[in-house]
């Protein structure tokens, strides 16, 4: 069989987080509300 001499770059694939992780973050951001009361921060997650 003919040999292939073309060099393959070692790190061609981009490292990306899982799609679910990104989707979770976007959804988390949508439902999160932070209410400030004096020194306290209340995190409200709308369900």
């Amino acid at each position, binding site marked *: 069989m003919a040999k292939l001499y073309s060099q393959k770059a070692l790190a061609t694939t*981009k*490292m*990306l*987080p*899982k799609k679910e*992780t*990104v989707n*979770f*973050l*976007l959804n*988390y*951001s*949508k439902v*999160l*509300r*932070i209410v*400030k009361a004096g020194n306290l*921060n209340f*995190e409200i997650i709308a369900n």
Partner: protein
Amino acid sequence: MASTQTPDALLVKNYIAGDENALALLINRHQSKIYGFIYSKLADRDVADDVFQDTFMKVIKTLKSNSYNEEGKFLPWVMRIAHNLIVDHYRKNKKMPMLRETEEFSIFSILSDSSLNAEGQMITELIEKDLQRIVEELPADQKEVLMMRLYQDLSFNEIAELTNVSINTALGRMRYAILNMRKIIEKNQIILTN
């Protein structure tokens, strides 16, 4: 695409103002660098995903609570959060190391099930039956003290009161009960070990 040219600072501003799309753009723009950085330190995709998620949860909370200051740039700020979380991860793992099953290492070498297997349970049942029979052989007064002490967990003071004898008599009966049980065991060559 116009949105890729939008500076980070403007996207952050828009996000704080309520534009959820701005966050998606920010994540899309920087996910590769941030995830790559995290993965380079952890070398585990699952853990890297967890840290990536925690990093952005912190980013979201900070931005939503208006405590983000525009002093630095967005990416270095997120990288610093990620870096701190990686350090936290290693600190936590030092206290509670994560172990994975490999060819050379079996998780069961350090994990064991302390409950008895079927054979052990059967032997225990037999021993208990033998023991009950031995107790039945004892004279009534000794049997009474032994049952009260070992099964009802009463003190010798309470036993003495309940059986209307002195504490010394109760102690003596217990002693004789044990001696007699030993005799029965020896005589009948009963083995009471599992």
